[in-house]
């Protein structure tokens, strides 16, 4: 369906100044949360699951830097371990999407014909379903776990990556270096891997980062509804969901994870968008 093929024309002039302070701040934040998430076990945080019923919703203190949540668990520790869950899903699911979607997209864009029509049609069909509902249904039946979540969100991301890869391949396969390779008698596999793939990797990587942002949001939404990362493992989404009950007395319980999630999603979006703005005009300039 033509209407699903949306391309927003970027005016590069306003964007090209984006590789400034904001970009590096975003990179910095991403490095920070990754470092903290990876090193979580080693760093001196209290356990995120230890409940202290005497210290429910405690304010900031030297013992609990960011206070405690509704069940007396250390908020900072939960944020850190929540980062781990959210980033794990957020990173691994798009990997599935980019590998499968990227491969399918390249094949579709290269071979064209009925194969392409079939793939594009299937993507259209998949995209006709509200993604959250699909994820909810499958999670509810398969059971909640980080693995299932990653698999589901990964598969749901395949059509989007497929579209990016296909568009890039379509644009490239008519260029001289591909025709030259074909004239020299190169096999399809060789052309795909040696000529096309290196060029398709750029826009795919840019979209991958945006995909991470989207996945973190999706996982957050599912966890917010209680159907994502299973408790007691913390996740930013579930923390926000739990914090909702204490909005009147301790709004920080919802807003701390909210701000953390927002900053992380924003950072991934910024970096991904900047990369996209950098790679797009290069595609056009042959």
């Amino acid at each position, binding site marked *: *369906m*033509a*209407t*699903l093929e*949306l391309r*927003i*024309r*970027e*005016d590069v*002039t*306003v964007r090209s100044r984006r590789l400034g302070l904001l970009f590096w701040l975003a990179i910095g934040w991403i490095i920070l949360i990754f470092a903290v998430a990876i090193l979580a076990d080693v760093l001196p945080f209290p356990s995120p699951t230890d409940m202290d019923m005497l210290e429910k919703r405690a304010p900031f203190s030297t013992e609990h830097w960011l206070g405690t949540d509704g069940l007396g668990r250390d908020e900072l520790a939960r944020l850190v371990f929540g980062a781990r869950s959210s980033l794990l899903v957020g990173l691994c699911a798009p990997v599935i999407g980019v590998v499968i979607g990227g491969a399918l997209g390249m094949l579709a864009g290269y071979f064209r014909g009925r194969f392409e029509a079939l793939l594009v*049609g*299937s993507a*259209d*069909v*998949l995209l*006709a*379903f*509200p*993604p*959250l*509902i*699909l994820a*909810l*249904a*499958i999670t*509810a*039946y*398969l059971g909640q776990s980080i693995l299932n979540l990653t698999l589901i969100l990964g598969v749901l991301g395949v059509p989007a990556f497929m579209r990016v890869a296909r568009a890039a391949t379509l644009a490239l396969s008519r260029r001289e270096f591909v025709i030259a390779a074909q004239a020299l008698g190169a096999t399809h596999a060789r052309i795909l891997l040696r000529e096309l793939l290196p060029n398709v990797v750029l826009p795919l990587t840019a979209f991958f980062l945006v995909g991470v*942002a989207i996945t973190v*949001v999706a996982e*957050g*939404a599912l966890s*917010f*509804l209680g159907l994502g990362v299973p408790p007691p493992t913390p996740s930013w*989404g579930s923390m*926000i*969901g739990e*914090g*909702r009950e204490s*909005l*009147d007395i301790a*709004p920080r319980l*919802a*807003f701390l994870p*909210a701000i953390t*999630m*927002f900053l992380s*999603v*924003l950072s991934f*979006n*910024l970096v991904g*968008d900047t990369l996209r703005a950098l790679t797009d005009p290069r595609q056009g300039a042959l």
Partner: protein
Amino acid sequence: MLGFLARRLVYLVPVLLAVSLLTFLIASLLPGDLAYVILGDQATPEKVAALRHDMGLDQPIWWRYLGWLGHLLEGDLGRSFRTGQTVLQAVTERLPVSIELMLLAETIGLLIGVPLAIMCAARAGGAFDRFVTGTAFGMLSVPTFLSAILLIYLFAVQLHLLPATGYVPLAEDPFGNLRFFVLPALTLGLAEWPTIMRVLRSDMIATLQEDYIALARAKGLKPSRILFVHALKPSSLTLVTVTGINIGRLIGGAVIVEQVFALPGIGRLIVGAIYTRDLVILQGAVLLVAAGFVAVNFIVDMLYAVLDPRIRHGHA
């Protein structure tokens, strides 16, 4: 024009069939024996087997699919085991809520996005433009449930201006109804306006560089007329597409908002069906939502032709 329509329709049929197949597969192939779920504590192997036979669950899957499809084409989407309602009844009950939410949300999105887009395009690159574009970008990184929480905190908890949850039908109490819809519609609208603004702004900036805008200026027309009549119309194609797709998406896709604000819409119906394993409702409602989305996209394609007379006459 008719050829255009016919070609689009032909593509529609296999897509709808595939949608129905996928819906059925998802609902049926997932683990969890329906008969067990229905019988609950009263489940014994004999009763389960009998119920399965009654419901036709022991038939091969392709047979069941065809049976379901057959009923579909007669207009019979099935009846819920739990509530006894037909799918159509359940959906039509919830549809007004979802539609009202969708219309209000999209209207808010347009009311914010369109004027901002025009103002930004008129002075592209200026301070206002950069501020709004930056804000829009930031807004895109705010998940729906986040803005929902924020709005609830601001308006319900702090200011006590608006209710956090609840619903009253429009016919009963229009004012009360709207009060319940303000926060949810605003939440969604805030998520919609950035895309609307970016898309329209981008198209308008491109249009404003066209020769015919230069000629319109050379003719001495008022700047407002140039913006709103000469530039807006040719730039609105992508906007119409986006709005159409949004409308299609929002009808079944406002799950989070419906859950958070406890609005009895279609999203909530489907989530409820997932929880209670009400497969009939799940199948039927998801099918309607997905098919509806496909249909809306089709209509949007048709609108293309109306907006751009060049496509109508076959020149592109």
